[in-house]
Protein backbone atom coordinates (compact mmCIF):
# COMPACT_ATOMS: atom_id res chain seq x y z
CA UNK A 1 0.00 0.00 0.00
CA UNK A 2 1.40 3.34 -1.01
CA UNK A 3 0.36 6.92 -0.26
CA UNK A 4 2.22 9.99 -1.37
CA UNK A 5 2.04 13.66 -0.39
CA UNK A 6 3.24 16.63 -2.46
CA UNK A 7 5.83 19.21 -1.39
CA UNK A 8 4.42 21.46 1.29
CA UNK A 9 2.01 18.84 2.63
CA UNK A 10 4.48 17.76 5.29
CA UNK A 11 2.05 18.31 8.14
CA UNK A 12 -0.61 16.06 6.56
CA UNK A 13 2.07 13.41 5.94
CA UNK A 14 3.15 13.56 9.55
CA UNK A 15 -0.43 13.56 10.88
CA UNK A 16 -1.18 10.43 8.89
CA UNK A 17 1.92 8.61 10.21
CA UNK A 18 1.12 9.67 13.78
CA UNK A 19 -2.42 8.38 13.39
CA UNK A 20 -1.16 5.03 12.06
CA UNK A 21 1.31 4.83 14.94
CA UNK A 22 -1.48 5.49 17.45
CA UNK A 23 -3.51 2.71 15.82
CA UNK A 24 -0.69 0.26 16.55
CA UNK A 25 1.16 0.22 13.23
CA UNK A 26 4.88 -0.56 13.77
CA UNK A 27 7.24 1.95 12.18
CA UNK A 28 10.07 0.13 10.40
CA UNK A 29 12.27 2.70 8.73
CA UNK A 30 12.64 6.07 7.07
CA UNK A 31 14.50 6.25 3.76
CA UNK A 32 14.92 8.27 0.61
CA UNK A 33 14.46 6.51 -2.72
CA UNK A 34 16.74 7.08 -5.74
CA UNK A 35 14.28 9.66 -7.13
CA UNK A 36 14.46 11.71 -3.94
CA UNK A 37 11.09 10.93 -2.32
CA UNK A 38 11.31 10.42 1.45
CA UNK A 39 9.43 7.31 2.55
CA UNK A 40 8.26 6.29 5.96
CA UNK A 41 7.57 2.57 6.06
CA UNK A 42 5.32 0.83 8.56
CA UNK A 43 3.63 -2.50 8.96
CA UNK A 44 0.46 -3.49 10.80
CA UNK A 45 0.32 -6.47 13.12
CA UNK A 46 -0.21 -9.64 11.13
CA UNK A 47 -0.05 -7.73 7.82
CA UNK A 48 1.71 -9.21 4.83
CA UNK A 49 2.10 -5.90 3.06
CA UNK A 50 4.03 -2.80 4.11
CA UNK A 51 2.56 0.68 4.22
CA UNK A 52 4.68 3.25 2.35
CA UNK A 53 4.08 6.91 3.17
CA UNK A 54 5.96 9.16 0.76
CA UNK A 55 6.60 12.89 0.73
CA UNK A 56 8.32 15.17 -1.74
CA UNK A 57 11.07 16.75 0.44
CA UNK A 58 11.28 19.93 -1.64
CA UNK A 59 11.10 22.83 0.81
CA UNK A 60 11.54 20.75 3.97
CA UNK A 61 9.85 17.93 5.82
CA UNK A 62 8.35 17.90 9.32
CA UNK A 63 10.93 16.38 11.67
CA UNK A 64 9.47 13.11 12.99
CA UNK A 65 11.31 13.29 16.32
CA UNK A 66 9.88 16.76 17.00
CA UNK A 67 6.41 15.34 16.31
CA UNK A 68 6.91 12.59 18.89
CA UNK A 69 8.29 9.76 16.74
CA UNK A 70 11.55 8.53 18.27
CA UNK A 71 11.95 5.37 16.18
CA UNK A 72 13.60 7.18 13.29
CA UNK A 73 16.04 9.57 14.99
CA UNK A 74 19.08 7.86 13.53
CA UNK A 75 17.71 7.83 9.98
CA UNK A 76 16.75 11.51 10.28
CA UNK A 77 20.39 12.29 11.11
CA UNK A 78 21.59 10.21 8.17
CA UNK A 79 19.25 11.91 5.70
CA UNK A 80 20.31 15.34 6.94
CA UNK A 81 24.00 14.52 6.31
CA UNK A 82 23.93 13.11 2.80
CA UNK A 83 25.19 14.96 -0.28
CA UNK A 84 21.74 16.41 -1.04
CA UNK A 85 20.43 16.67 2.50
CA UNK A 86 16.80 16.48 3.50
CA UNK A 87 15.89 19.69 5.27
CA UNK A 88 14.02 18.94 8.47
CA UNK A 89 11.57 21.35 10.04
CA UNK A 90 12.45 22.43 12.72
CA UNK A 91 16.10 22.30 11.53
CA UNK A 92 17.57 21.48 14.94
CA UNK A 93 16.63 18.95 17.52
CA UNK A 94 16.70 20.84 20.83
CA UNK A 95 19.78 19.82 22.79
CA UNK A 96 19.46 19.60 26.53
CA UNK A 97 22.32 20.18 28.89
CA UNK A 98 22.75 19.89 32.63
CA UNK A 99 24.06 23.02 34.31
CA UNK A 100 24.14 24.15 37.89
CA UNK A 101 26.14 24.45 41.05
CA UNK A 102 27.84 21.20 42.03
CA UNK A 103 27.37 19.46 38.68
CA UNK A 104 30.51 17.81 37.44
CA UNK A 105 30.93 16.47 33.92
CA UNK A 106 32.64 13.14 33.66
CA UNK A 107 33.83 12.37 30.11
CA UNK A 108 34.26 8.68 29.37
CA UNK A 109 35.56 7.38 26.08
CA UNK A 110 36.00 6.88 23.20
CA UNK A 111 38.81 4.79 24.74
CA UNK A 112 37.36 2.70 27.56
CA UNK A 113 38.66 0.20 30.04
CA UNK A 114 38.63 -3.38 28.77
CA UNK A 115 37.79 -4.39 25.21
CA UNK A 116 34.98 -2.24 23.87
CA UNK A 117 33.86 -0.18 20.92
CA UNK A 118 34.52 3.52 20.44
CA UNK A 119 31.78 5.70 21.89
CA UNK A 120 31.90 8.68 24.21
CA UNK A 121 29.71 9.05 27.27
CA UNK A 122 29.50 12.47 28.91
CA UNK A 123 28.13 11.80 32.36
CA UNK A 124 26.95 14.80 34.38
CA UNK A 125 26.98 13.92 38.06
CA UNK A 126 25.93 15.69 41.21
CA UNK A 127 27.77 13.99 44.01
CA UNK A 128 27.30 10.33 43.17
CA UNK A 129 24.05 10.70 41.29
CA UNK A 130 24.01 10.77 37.50
CA UNK A 131 21.76 13.66 36.49
CA UNK A 132 22.35 13.66 32.74
CA UNK A 133 24.08 11.58 30.10
CA UNK A 134 24.98 12.62 26.57
CA UNK A 135 26.27 10.07 24.08
CA UNK A 136 28.61 11.07 21.28
CA UNK A 137 28.92 8.62 18.42
CA UNK A 138 30.38 9.00 14.94
CA UNK A 139 33.93 7.88 15.72
CA UNK A 140 33.76 4.89 13.40
CA UNK A 141 31.25 5.17 10.56
CA UNK A 142 32.06 3.01 7.55
CA UNK A 143 29.23 4.37 5.37
CA UNK A 144 28.12 0.90 4.40
CA UNK A 145 24.77 1.87 2.85
CA UNK A 146 26.49 4.43 0.60
CA UNK A 147 29.20 1.91 -0.37
CA UNK A 148 26.52 -0.58 -1.45
CA UNK A 149 24.99 1.77 -4.04
CA UNK A 150 25.96 0.63 -7.53
CA UNK A 151 27.32 -2.72 -6.33
CA UNK A 152 26.00 -6.10 -7.40
CA UNK A 153 23.77 -7.90 -4.92
CA UNK A 154 26.54 -10.39 -4.10
CA UNK A 155 29.14 -7.67 -3.52
CA UNK A 156 26.75 -5.71 -1.32
CA UNK A 157 26.09 -8.84 0.75
CA UNK A 158 29.80 -8.99 1.63
CA UNK A 159 29.54 -5.44 2.99
CA UNK A 160 26.30 -5.80 4.95
CA UNK A 161 27.42 -9.01 6.64
CA UNK A 162 30.24 -6.95 8.12
CA UNK A 163 28.03 -4.26 9.62
CA UNK A 164 27.87 -5.90 13.05
CA UNK A 165 29.70 -9.20 13.51
CA UNK A 166 27.57 -10.41 16.39
CA UNK A 167 24.45 -10.12 14.22
CA UNK A 168 26.07 -10.82 10.87
CA UNK A 169 23.57 -13.48 9.80
CA UNK A 170 20.57 -11.32 10.69
CA UNK A 171 21.95 -8.62 8.41
CA UNK A 172 22.47 -11.17 5.64
CA UNK A 173 18.95 -12.46 6.00
CA UNK A 174 17.20 -9.07 6.20
CA UNK A 175 19.16 -7.89 3.17
CA UNK A 176 18.42 -11.06 1.21
CA UNK A 177 14.74 -10.84 2.16
CA UNK A 178 14.57 -7.26 0.87
CA UNK A 179 16.26 -8.28 -2.40
CA UNK A 180 13.93 -11.26 -2.77
CA UNK A 181 10.88 -9.07 -2.22
CA UNK A 182 12.16 -6.56 -4.78
CA UNK A 183 12.51 -9.44 -7.25
CA UNK A 184 9.05 -10.77 -6.48
CA UNK A 185 10.38 -13.97 -4.87
CA UNK A 186 9.85 -15.78 -1.59
CA UNK A 187 12.40 -18.26 -0.29
CA UNK A 188 11.14 -21.89 -0.16
CA UNK A 189 10.58 -23.55 3.18
CA UNK A 190 13.83 -25.54 3.24
CA UNK A 191 15.78 -22.31 2.84
CA UNK A 192 13.80 -20.66 5.63
CA UNK A 193 14.44 -23.60 7.96
CA UNK A 194 18.17 -23.35 7.33
CA UNK A 195 18.15 -19.59 7.87
CA UNK A 196 16.14 -19.92 11.09
CA UNK A 197 18.72 -22.37 12.50
CA UNK A 198 21.57 -20.02 11.60
CA UNK A 199 19.81 -17.02 13.11
CA UNK A 200 19.08 -18.79 16.40
CA UNK A 201 22.71 -19.95 16.63
CA UNK A 202 23.72 -16.33 16.21
CA UNK A 203 21.26 -15.22 18.90
CA UNK A 204 22.67 -17.83 21.29
CA UNK A 205 26.26 -16.67 20.84
CA UNK A 206 25.29 -13.01 21.13
CA UNK A 207 23.11 -13.43 24.24
CA UNK A 208 25.64 -15.65 26.03
CA UNK A 209 28.35 -13.03 25.37
CA UNK A 210 26.04 -10.29 26.70
CA UNK A 211 25.28 -12.32 29.83
CA UNK A 212 29.02 -12.83 30.39
CA UNK A 213 29.62 -9.08 30.21
CA UNK A 214 26.76 -8.42 32.64
CA UNK A 215 28.15 -10.98 35.11
CA UNK A 216 31.58 -9.36 34.79
CA UNK A 217 30.15 -5.88 35.45
CA UNK A 218 28.77 -7.07 38.79
CA UNK A 219 32.14 -8.54 39.76
CA UNK A 220 31.26 -12.21 39.29
CA UNK A 221 34.10 -13.68 37.21
CA UNK A 222 33.04 -17.30 37.77
CA UNK A 223 29.67 -16.70 36.11
CA UNK A 224 31.38 -14.60 33.44
CA UNK A 225 33.81 -17.41 32.60
CA UNK A 226 31.05 -20.01 32.59
CA UNK A 227 28.98 -17.94 30.14
CA UNK A 228 32.06 -17.26 27.98
CA UNK A 229 32.79 -20.97 27.82
CA UNK A 230 29.26 -21.58 26.56
CA UNK A 231 29.64 -18.79 24.00
CA UNK A 232 32.87 -20.37 22.77
CA UNK A 233 31.08 -23.71 22.52
CA UNK A 234 28.45 -22.12 20.26
CA UNK A 235 31.09 -20.32 18.16
CA UNK A 236 32.89 -23.63 17.64
CA UNK A 237 29.63 -25.25 16.56
CA UNK A 238 29.03 -22.32 14.20
CA UNK A 239 32.36 -23.09 12.61
CA UNK A 240 31.53 -26.78 12.27
CA UNK A 241 28.03 -26.22 10.91
CA UNK A 242 28.47 -23.09 8.78
CA UNK A 243 32.28 -22.94 8.33
CA UNK A 244 32.52 -19.55 10.05
CA UNK A 245 32.41 -18.60 13.72
CA UNK A 246 30.33 -15.48 12.95
CA UNK A 247 28.31 -17.05 10.11
CA UNK A 248 29.86 -14.93 7.38
CA UNK A 249 28.96 -16.41 4.03
CA UNK A 250 26.42 -18.72 5.67
CA UNK A 251 23.48 -17.36 3.69
CA UNK A 252 25.13 -18.06 0.33
CA UNK A 253 26.31 -21.48 1.52
CA UNK A 254 22.73 -22.47 2.24
CA UNK A 255 23.45 -25.94 3.60
CA UNK A 256 24.45 -27.35 6.98
CA UNK A 257 27.60 -29.37 7.34
CA UNK A 258 27.08 -33.07 8.01
CA UNK A 259 28.31 -32.40 11.58
CA UNK A 260 24.74 -31.16 12.22
CA UNK A 261 23.60 -34.67 13.12
CA UNK A 262 25.77 -34.57 16.24
CA UNK A 263 24.94 -30.97 17.19
CA UNK A 264 21.54 -31.31 18.88
CA UNK A 265 22.82 -33.05 22.02
CA UNK A 266 25.66 -30.58 22.53
CA UNK A 267 23.37 -27.58 22.05
CA UNK A 268 20.79 -28.91 24.48
CA UNK A 269 23.61 -29.31 27.02
CA UNK A 270 24.57 -25.66 26.45
CA UNK A 271 20.98 -24.64 27.18
CA UNK A 272 20.94 -26.68 30.40
CA UNK A 273 24.24 -25.25 31.58
CA UNK A 274 23.06 -21.71 30.85
CA UNK A 275 19.93 -22.37 32.92
CA UNK A 276 22.05 -23.71 35.74
CA UNK A 277 24.30 -20.59 35.77
CA UNK A 278 21.19 -18.39 35.78
CA UNK A 279 19.70 -20.37 38.68
CA UNK A 280 22.81 -19.80 40.74
CA UNK A 281 22.93 -16.12 39.86
CA UNK A 282 19.33 -15.78 41.03
CA UNK A 283 20.54 -17.04 44.41
CA UNK A 284 23.42 -14.56 44.55
CA UNK A 285 22.34 -11.41 46.41
CA UNK A 286 25.40 -9.41 45.31
CA UNK A 287 24.22 -9.90 41.72
CA UNK A 288 20.52 -9.22 42.23
CA UNK A 289 21.08 -6.18 44.46
CA UNK A 290 22.98 -4.44 41.69
CA UNK A 291 20.42 -5.23 38.98
CA UNK A 292 16.98 -4.83 40.46
CA UNK A 293 15.70 -1.32 39.83
CA UNK A 294 18.91 -0.15 38.12
CA UNK A 295 18.67 1.66 34.79
CA UNK A 296 14.88 1.79 34.62
CA UNK A 297 13.70 3.28 31.33
CA UNK A 298 11.23 6.14 31.99
CA UNK A 299 7.70 5.65 30.59
CA UNK A 300 7.92 8.75 28.40
CA UNK A 301 11.06 7.43 26.71
CA UNK A 302 9.43 4.05 26.10
CA UNK A 303 6.53 5.74 24.37
CA UNK A 304 8.83 8.00 22.33
CA UNK A 305 11.45 5.50 21.09
CA UNK A 306 9.51 2.23 21.49
CA UNK A 307 12.69 0.17 21.93
CA UNK A 308 12.89 -3.19 20.21
CA UNK A 309 14.37 -6.59 21.00
CA UNK A 310 15.26 -7.71 24.53
CA UNK A 311 15.30 -4.06 25.68
CA UNK A 312 11.68 -3.62 24.55
CA UNK A 313 10.53 -7.02 25.81
CA UNK A 314 11.90 -6.23 29.25
CA UNK A 315 9.84 -3.03 29.34
CA UNK A 316 6.39 -4.38 28.60
CA UNK A 317 6.67 -3.86 24.83
CA UNK A 318 6.19 -7.39 23.63
CA UNK A 319 7.30 -7.06 20.03
CA UNK A 320 9.24 -9.93 18.53
CA UNK A 321 9.41 -9.90 14.74
CA UNK A 322 9.45 -13.72 14.73
CA UNK A 323 6.01 -13.72 16.34
CA UNK A 324 4.58 -10.61 14.64
CA UNK A 325 5.32 -11.49 11.03
CA UNK A 326 6.69 -15.00 10.70
CA UNK A 327 9.46 -14.74 8.11
CA UNK A 328 11.12 -18.10 8.83
CA UNK A 329 9.28 -21.15 10.07
CA UNK A 330 8.67 -19.76 13.54
CA UNK A 331 4.91 -20.31 13.48
CA UNK A 332 5.55 -24.03 13.09
CA UNK A 333 7.81 -24.25 16.14
CA UNK A 334 5.84 -22.58 18.88
CA UNK A 335 8.20 -20.68 21.17
CA UNK A 336 7.73 -18.39 24.13
CA UNK A 337 8.33 -14.65 23.79
CA UNK A 338 9.55 -13.61 27.25
CA UNK A 339 7.91 -10.54 28.74
CA UNK A 340 9.17 -8.65 31.76
CA UNK A 341 7.48 -5.44 32.79
CA UNK A 342 9.96 -3.48 34.89
CA UNK A 343 12.27 -1.97 32.24
CA UNK A 344 15.27 -2.35 34.59
CA UNK A 345 18.60 -4.18 34.32
CA UNK A 346 17.14 -7.24 36.05
CA UNK A 347 14.32 -7.53 33.49
CA UNK A 348 16.83 -7.24 30.65
CA UNK A 349 18.91 -10.02 32.22
CA UNK A 350 15.85 -12.26 32.61
CA UNK A 351 14.66 -11.72 29.04
CA UNK A 352 18.06 -12.71 27.65
CA UNK A 353 18.32 -15.83 29.79
CA UNK A 354 14.83 -16.97 28.76
CA UNK A 355 15.62 -16.29 25.11
CA UNK A 356 18.69 -18.52 25.34
CA UNK A 357 16.39 -21.39 26.33
CA UNK A 358 13.85 -20.67 23.61
CA UNK A 359 16.58 -20.43 20.94
CA UNK A 360 17.96 -23.81 21.99
CA UNK A 361 14.44 -25.25 21.69
CA UNK A 362 13.93 -23.80 18.23
CA UNK A 363 17.28 -25.15 17.01
CA UNK A 364 16.59 -28.56 18.56
CA UNK A 365 13.34 -28.83 16.62
CA UNK A 366 14.65 -27.49 13.31
CA UNK A 367 18.04 -29.25 13.11
CA UNK A 368 16.65 -32.63 12.02
CA UNK A 369 14.69 -31.07 9.15
CA UNK A 370 17.29 -28.51 8.03
CA UNK A 371 18.62 -29.21 4.52
CA UNK A 372 21.78 -31.31 4.19
CA UNK A 373 21.90 -30.81 0.41
CA UNK A 374 21.99 -27.34 -1.10
CA UNK A 375 18.55 -26.09 -2.22
CA UNK A 376 18.45 -24.45 -5.64
CA UNK A 377 18.19 -20.90 -4.41
CA UNK A 378 18.14 -18.07 -5.28
CA UNK A 379 16.16 -18.91 -8.40
CA UNK A 380 17.76 -17.61 -11.57
CA UNK A 381 14.46 -16.24 -12.90
CA UNK A 382 13.05 -13.11 -11.40
CA UNK A 383 10.78 -10.31 -12.40
CA UNK A 384 12.05 -6.81 -13.04
CA UNK A 385 13.25 -4.00 -10.86
CA UNK A 386 11.56 -3.04 -7.69
CA UNK A 387 11.97 -2.12 -4.11
CA UNK A 388 11.79 -4.45 -1.18
CA UNK A 389 11.72 -4.50 2.59
CA UNK A 390 13.32 -7.21 4.73
CA UNK A 391 12.62 -7.37 8.46
CA UNK A 392 14.07 -9.88 10.92
CA UNK A 393 14.47 -10.23 14.67
CA UNK A 394 18.24 -9.79 15.11
CA UNK A 395 19.76 -10.64 18.52
CA UNK A 396 19.25 -7.00 19.58
CA UNK A 397 15.82 -6.58 17.98
CA UNK A 398 13.98 -5.45 14.87
CA UNK A 399 16.36 -5.07 11.94
CA UNK A 400 14.92 -3.63 8.72
CA UNK A 401 16.48 -3.25 5.27
CA UNK A 402 15.04 -1.39 2.28
CA UNK A 403 16.60 -1.89 -1.16
CA UNK A 404 15.95 -0.42 -4.55
CA UNK A 405 17.31 -2.57 -7.40
CA UNK A 406 18.36 -1.43 -10.88
CA UNK A 407 16.25 -2.39 -13.90
CA UNK A 408 18.00 -5.73 -14.44
CA UNK A 409 17.41 -6.64 -10.81
CA UNK A 410 21.09 -7.43 -10.23
CA UNK A 411 22.50 -4.23 -8.75
CA UNK A 412 21.71 -2.15 -5.73
CA UNK A 413 20.58 1.32 -6.62
CA UNK A 414 19.93 2.40 -3.06
CA UNK A 415 19.99 0.77 0.34
CA UNK A 416 18.70 1.90 3.73
CA UNK A 417 19.04 0.16 7.08
CA UNK A 418 17.35 0.52 10.46
CA UNK A 419 19.36 -1.38 13.05
CA UNK A 420 18.01 -2.17 16.52
CA UNK A 421 21.06 -0.60 18.17
CA UNK A 422 20.70 2.72 16.31
CA UNK A 423 17.16 2.89 17.71
CA UNK A 424 17.73 1.52 21.21
CA UNK A 425 20.77 3.67 22.01
CA UNK A 426 18.33 6.57 22.41
CA UNK A 427 16.77 4.99 25.49
CA UNK A 428 20.12 4.58 27.26
CA UNK A 429 20.68 8.22 28.39
CA UNK A 430 17.25 8.64 30.05
CA UNK A 431 17.57 5.20 31.67
CA UNK A 432 21.02 6.00 33.09
CA UNK A 433 20.03 9.46 34.36
CA UNK A 434 17.09 8.06 36.31
CA UNK A 435 18.02 7.98 40.01
CA UNK A 436 21.18 5.97 39.47
CA UNK A 437 24.61 6.59 40.92
CA UNK A 438 27.91 6.53 39.07
CA UNK A 439 28.73 3.06 40.37
CA UNK A 440 25.60 1.70 38.66
CA UNK A 441 26.72 2.96 35.28
CA UNK A 442 28.86 -0.04 34.15
CA UNK A 443 26.08 -2.42 35.12
CA UNK A 444 23.37 -0.44 33.34
CA UNK A 445 25.58 -0.15 30.27
CA UNK A 446 26.22 -3.91 30.31
CA UNK A 447 22.51 -4.62 30.73
CA UNK A 448 21.81 -2.86 27.41
CA UNK A 449 24.97 -3.95 25.62
CA UNK A 450 24.05 -2.41 22.30
CA UNK A 451 26.35 -2.42 19.34
CA UNK A 452 28.18 0.77 18.38
CA UNK A 453 28.98 -0.73 14.97
CA UNK A 454 25.24 -0.94 14.33
CA UNK A 455 24.88 2.76 15.16
CA UNK A 456 27.99 4.07 13.34
CA UNK A 457 27.20 2.04 10.27
Amino acid at each position, binding site marked *: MEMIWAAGQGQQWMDHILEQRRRGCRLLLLAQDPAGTVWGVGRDLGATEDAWWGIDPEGGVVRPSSAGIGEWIHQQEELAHQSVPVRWDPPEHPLRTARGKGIFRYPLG*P*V*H*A*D*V*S*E*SLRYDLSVMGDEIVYLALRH*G*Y*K*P*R*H*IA*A*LCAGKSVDDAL*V*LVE*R*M*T*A*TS*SFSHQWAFAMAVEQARGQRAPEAVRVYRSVAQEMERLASHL*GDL*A*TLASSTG*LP*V*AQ*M*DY*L*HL*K*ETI*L*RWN*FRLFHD*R*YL*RGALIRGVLDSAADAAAGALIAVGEQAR*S*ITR*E*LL*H*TPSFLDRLVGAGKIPAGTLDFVRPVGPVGRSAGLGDDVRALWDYGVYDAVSFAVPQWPNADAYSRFMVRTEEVSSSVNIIRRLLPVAPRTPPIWPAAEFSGPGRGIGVVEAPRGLLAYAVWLTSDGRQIEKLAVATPSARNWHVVPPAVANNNILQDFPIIDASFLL*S*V*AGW*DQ
Partner: protein
Amino acid sequence: MFYWRWLRNLAEGSKTTGYPFSEDPAVVSRGGSAVVHEPLAAAGPIRRAMAIRHIDGGSCNGCESELQMLSSPDYDFSRVGFSYTPSPRHADILVVTGVITQNMADIIADVFEGMPRPKRVVALGQCALSGHVFRAAPGVLGSLEGIVPVTVEIAGCPPTPGDILKGLLLAVDAAPALRKEGAV
Protein backbone atom coordinates in the same frame (compact mmCIF):
# COMPACT_ATOMS: atom_id res chain seq x y z
CA MET B 1 25.49 -19.18 45.93
CA PHE B 2 28.12 -19.13 43.32
CA TYR B 3 30.82 -20.89 45.38
CA TRP B 4 29.34 -24.30 44.57
CA ARG B 5 29.77 -23.66 40.90
CA TRP B 6 33.32 -22.53 41.48
CA LEU B 7 34.12 -25.72 43.40
CA ARG B 8 32.48 -27.85 40.70
CA ASN B 9 34.59 -26.12 38.05
CA LEU B 10 37.72 -26.91 40.06
CA ALA B 11 36.71 -30.54 40.26
CA GLU B 12 35.98 -30.70 36.53
CA GLY B 13 39.52 -29.66 35.63
CA SER B 14 40.85 -27.20 33.09
CA LYS B 15 38.99 -26.30 29.91
CA THR B 16 41.99 -24.41 28.57
CA THR B 17 43.66 -25.30 25.32
CA GLY B 18 47.41 -25.82 25.04
CA TYR B 19 47.39 -24.03 21.68
CA PRO B 20 49.66 -22.68 20.17
CA PHE B 21 52.29 -24.68 22.07
CA SER B 22 50.53 -27.92 21.25
CA GLU B 23 48.03 -28.88 18.59
CA ASP B 24 44.33 -28.75 19.46
CA PRO B 25 41.79 -29.80 16.82
CA ALA B 26 39.07 -27.75 18.55
CA VAL B 27 41.01 -24.51 18.11
CA VAL B 28 40.56 -23.12 14.65
CA SER B 29 43.40 -21.46 12.86
CA ARG B 30 42.40 -19.94 9.56
CA GLY B 31 46.00 -19.46 8.60
CA GLY B 32 45.63 -15.84 9.70
CA SER B 33 49.30 -15.26 9.30
CA ALA B 34 51.09 -12.92 11.64
CA VAL B 35 53.67 -10.68 10.01
CA VAL B 36 56.39 -9.30 12.22
CA HIS B 37 57.69 -5.95 10.98
CA GLU B 38 60.04 -4.39 13.42
CA PRO B 39 63.26 -6.19 14.26
CA LEU B 40 62.30 -7.25 17.77
CA ALA B 41 65.63 -6.42 19.35
CA ALA B 42 65.51 -2.86 18.01
CA ALA B 43 62.28 -2.11 19.90
CA GLY B 44 63.80 -3.12 23.22
CA PRO B 45 63.28 -6.26 25.23
CA ILE B 46 59.69 -7.06 26.06
CA ARG B 47 58.79 -10.41 27.53
CA ARG B 48 56.25 -11.51 30.10
CA ALA B 49 53.27 -10.21 32.10
CA MET B 50 52.25 -8.05 29.20
CA ALA B 51 49.39 -5.58 29.64
CA ILE B 52 47.29 -5.04 26.53
CA ARG B 53 45.38 -1.88 25.68
CA HIS B 54 42.78 -2.24 22.95
CA ILE B 55 41.42 0.50 20.69
CA ASP B 56 38.59 0.16 18.21
CA GLY B 57 39.49 2.16 15.11
CA GLY B 58 36.24 1.38 13.28
CA SER B 59 35.45 -2.29 13.63
CA CYS B 60 32.31 -4.40 13.21
CA ASN B 61 32.85 -5.75 16.77
CA GLY B 62 33.99 -9.15 15.45
CA CYS B 63 37.62 -8.60 16.48
CA GLU B 64 36.39 -7.32 19.87
CA SER B 65 34.29 -10.43 20.34
CA GLU B 66 37.31 -12.64 19.61
CA LEU B 67 39.56 -10.55 21.89
CA GLN B 68 37.04 -11.07 24.69
CA MET B 69 37.20 -14.81 24.06
CA LEU B 70 40.94 -14.73 24.84
CA SER B 71 40.12 -14.28 28.51
CA SER B 72 37.60 -17.16 28.43
CA PRO B 73 38.54 -20.43 30.12
CA ASP B 74 39.01 -21.98 26.67
CA TYR B 75 41.99 -19.76 25.77
CA ASP B 76 42.90 -18.07 29.06
CA PHE B 77 45.66 -15.84 27.73
CA SER B 78 46.72 -14.98 31.28
CA ARG B 79 48.42 -18.41 31.40
CA VAL B 80 51.07 -16.98 29.06
CA GLY B 81 51.23 -13.65 30.86
CA PHE B 82 48.71 -11.40 29.06
CA SER B 83 46.03 -9.24 30.59
CA TYR B 84 43.94 -6.23 29.57
CA THR B 85 44.64 -2.92 31.20
CA PRO B 86 42.26 0.01 31.45
CA SER B 87 44.98 2.63 31.09
CA PRO B 88 47.50 3.26 28.31
CA ARG B 89 49.96 4.26 31.05
CA HIS B 90 50.15 0.63 32.16
CA ALA B 91 50.12 -0.90 28.70
CA ASP B 92 52.91 -2.73 26.90
CA ILE B 93 51.00 -3.68 23.77
CA LEU B 94 48.48 -1.62 21.83
CA VAL B 95 46.02 -3.76 19.86
CA VAL B 96 44.18 -1.81 17.16
CA THR B 97 41.12 -3.20 15.38
CA GLY B 98 38.88 -1.82 12.64
CA VAL B 99 39.24 0.17 9.45
CA ILE B 100 41.04 3.14 11.11
CA THR B 101 38.73 6.06 10.54
CA GLN B 102 39.93 9.62 10.23
CA ASN B 103 38.08 10.38 13.49
CA MET B 104 40.05 7.77 15.44
CA ALA B 105 43.52 8.37 13.96
CA ASP B 106 44.58 11.12 16.38
CA ILE B 107 43.11 9.26 19.33
CA ILE B 108 45.11 6.13 18.45
CA ALA B 109 48.29 8.23 18.14
CA ASP B 110 47.59 9.88 21.53
CA VAL B 111 47.10 6.55 23.26
CA PHE B 112 50.32 5.20 21.76
CA GLU B 113 52.12 8.35 22.89
CA GLY B 114 50.78 7.82 26.42
CA MET B 115 52.22 4.31 26.67
CA PRO B 116 55.62 3.86 28.34
CA ARG B 117 58.55 2.32 26.46
CA PRO B 118 59.30 -0.38 25.40
CA LYS B 119 55.99 -0.90 23.63
CA ARG B 120 54.54 -2.71 20.66
CA VAL B 121 51.59 -2.23 18.31
CA VAL B 122 49.54 -5.11 16.96
CA ALA B 123 47.27 -4.40 13.97
CA LEU B 124 44.47 -6.91 14.34
CA GLY B 125 42.25 -8.11 11.53
CA GLN B 126 41.97 -7.48 7.82
CA CYS B 127 40.37 -4.05 8.31
CA ALA B 128 43.30 -2.71 10.35
CA LEU B 129 45.74 -4.07 7.76
CA SER B 130 44.13 -2.75 4.58
CA GLY B 131 40.65 -1.39 5.23
CA HIS B 132 39.35 -4.67 3.80
CA VAL B 133 36.02 -4.19 1.98
CA PHE B 134 35.58 -0.68 3.41
CA ARG B 135 38.72 0.74 1.88
CA ALA B 136 36.85 3.09 -0.47
CA ALA B 137 34.54 4.51 2.19
CA PRO B 138 34.82 8.22 2.97
CA GLY B 139 36.77 8.97 6.12
CA VAL B 140 38.39 5.53 6.16
CA LEU B 141 42.21 5.52 6.16
CA GLY B 142 42.54 1.75 5.90
CA SER B 143 45.87 1.36 7.67
CA LEU B 144 47.96 2.53 10.60
CA GLU B 145 50.70 3.81 8.33
CA GLY B 146 51.88 7.20 9.47
CA ILE B 147 49.89 6.97 12.72
CA VAL B 148 51.76 4.41 14.84
CA PRO B 149 54.58 1.95 14.01
CA VAL B 150 53.11 -1.54 13.67
CA THR B 151 55.11 -4.45 15.09
CA VAL B 152 52.88 -7.39 14.26
CA GLU B 153 50.04 -7.74 11.76
CA ILE B 154 47.47 -10.46 12.35
CA ALA B 155 45.31 -11.22 9.32
CA GLY B 156 41.78 -12.66 9.34
CA CYS B 157 38.17 -11.45 9.32
CA PRO B 158 38.01 -11.74 12.24
CA PRO B 159 41.22 -13.56 13.22
CA THR B 160 40.41 -16.57 15.41
CA PRO B 161 41.45 -16.47 19.09
CA GLY B 162 44.10 -19.09 18.25
CA ASP B 163 45.59 -16.85 15.57
CA ILE B 164 45.45 -13.79 17.86
CA LEU B 165 47.23 -15.67 20.64
CA LYS B 166 49.96 -16.77 18.28
CA GLY B 167 50.38 -13.22 16.96
CA LEU B 168 50.54 -11.72 20.45
CA LEU B 169 53.23 -14.19 21.40
CA LEU B 170 55.23 -13.15 18.36
CA ALA B 171 54.96 -9.53 19.50
CA VAL B 172 56.63 -10.35 22.80
CA ASP B 173 59.78 -12.08 21.69
CA ALA B 174 58.20 -15.50 22.06
CA ALA B 175 59.19 -16.59 18.56
CA PRO B 176 62.07 -18.78 19.84
CA ALA B 177 59.75 -20.54 22.31
CA LEU B 178 57.13 -21.10 19.60
CA ARG B 179 59.79 -22.42 17.22
CA LYS B 180 61.04 -24.84 19.86
CA GLU B 181 57.52 -26.22 20.17
CA GLY B 182 57.17 -26.39 16.40
CA ALA B 183 54.29 -23.89 16.43
CA VAL B 184 55.74 -21.52 13.82
